[in-house]
């Protein structure tokens, strides 16, 4: 727990020191305005709530890919990985703490898009099922943190992680159904989409903003947690393997 908290504190200080960490908080309200403009200009006010939620999910994905995903690669470039591994604290705990701080940052986008919609178009978030909405956001942040660990572990194996982070954003927005439900995607791609926790989160978020009761709330929340936890375990296993290889081959200081 101390390692987790230390990681959280470290990342919070890094966010404060680097203005670039705030990129997703600058783009989230802009995306909200773009999406709101599209649905309003097309005469579909019923989709306004969906237009507001999409940037929140995009922000979490962005944080997972660009910031949390490149964490180990960045540490390696700055020669921070070696002292980090040499300490007795668990690397996974420090990483999780740092990623948790980033997820808190990502969730700020929820309040931003709320304000942007209200100020620019007078559109608010309809809190039809506030408890379900809050729980969905929480489990989504948890699952995103799990996926981030998997990204971080895989990206450290690549020659240029940024090629992957730049290439994966929109395919994941699409498959994760952040604006358009996975059900609208072509049939052959839907099984892939179902294996991505974000598609479950996106459907739940949209359902929590509409008046009808939410079907199978707990099962769907459980599915998000399950997929996020699975990603975390896979990421942790890869990380363990990568670190052992780096240590065994003496590649740690050769970044």
């Amino acid at each position, binding site marked *: 727990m101390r390692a987790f908290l230390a990681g959280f504190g470290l990342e919070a200080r890094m966010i404060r020191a*680097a*203005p*670039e960490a*705030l*990129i997703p908080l*600058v*783009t989230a309200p*802009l*995306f909200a*305005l*773009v*999406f709101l*403009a*599209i*649905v309003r*200009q*097309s005469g*579909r006010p019923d*989709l306004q709530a969906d237009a507001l939620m999409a940037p929140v999910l995009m922000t979490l994905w962005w944080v997972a890919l660009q910031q949390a995903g490149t964490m180990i690669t960045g540490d390696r470039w700055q020669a921070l990985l070696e002292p980090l591994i040499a300490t007795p604290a668990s690397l996974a705990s420090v990483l999780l703490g740092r990623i948790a701080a980033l997820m808190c940052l990502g969730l700020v986008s929820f309040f931003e898009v709320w304000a942007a919609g209200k100020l620019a178009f007078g559109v608010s978030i309809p809190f039809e099922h506030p408890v379900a909405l809050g729980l969905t956001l929480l489990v989504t942040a948890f699952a995103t943190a799990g996926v981030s660990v998997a990204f971080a572990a895989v990206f450290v194996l690549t020659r*240029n992680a*940024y*090629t*992957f982070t*730049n*290439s*994966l*954003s*929109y*395919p994941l*927005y*699409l498959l994760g159904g952040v*604006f*358009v*439900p996975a059900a*609208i*995607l072509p049939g052959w791609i839907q099984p892939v989409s179902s294996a991505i926790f974000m598609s479950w989160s996106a459907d739940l978020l949209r359902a929590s903003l509409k008046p009808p009761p939410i079907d199978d709330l707990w099962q769907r929340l459980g599915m998000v947690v399950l997929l996020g936890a699975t990603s975390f375990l896979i990421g942790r296993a890869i990380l363990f393997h990568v670190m052992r290889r780096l240590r065994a081959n003496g590649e740690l200081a050769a970044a």
Partner: protein
Amino acid sequence: MSALATTVNVMHHAFRAGLADYRAIFTWKSWLAGWMVRVIAQVAFFALIGERLGDDQKTFYLLVGNSILIAAVVGVFSLNMTTAERWAGTLPLLVASPSSPVIVFSARGSYLAVDGALSALAALFVAGPMFGMDLPWPRVLAVVPLTAVVALASYCFGTFLAGIVFRFRSINGLVVLTTHVSLMAACGVNVPLSYYPEALEWLSRVLPVTNGLLAIRGVFDGADVATILGNAALEAAVAVGWMTVALATFNQLASRGRRDGSLDYGA
């Protein structure tokens, strides 16, 4: 060697250095399987919003707008150049050399205008048929040079922004992404210009994309040649305008770094 020949020589070497950089980032395989997949997914993401709205015309509108936006996004990537040079430790050397930094940077990143135009056209010609959009032959060929003009204008705008980032390098990524989403929001990519307040409509006219995109939409809508050429000329004027501003400000901003000693090798 005359001044002109020297400048051409510097630009030639800078362009080759840029190409070498790009080859280090992408192979043909990773460009096709990574970058192009992302580009087509980006266009499909917006086109699917049109499908969800249940309006084919809106789907095509979003598809064309977001395809052409790709040219702008890649063009604006040119402002990453200064930060890349700084990370590589070559920025102070470049500024200290007798060549003009703006000549080096504008030539070095010019491959991005080519890449932007190619990526945008590939997105349009792949995603268009996927969504059942009609590409009227041979009229659609006019989209090729028009997209190139959009990419060039965006690249000139990116070169101007690179001068700004020269002074405020810690916000490089912030400027890239904010510019991307701002162009998406303001330039008629997703909703017609008439939807905006008049002031924003006027502002968008001096930004890259807006006029060129109107010309391209004109090609698909069967507009008369004069209208298309008029909008294309405006986009070209925007390109010239931003490159002029870049030439006027870039070296000044770079030399300030030389005066106050901020051209260090660190982050």
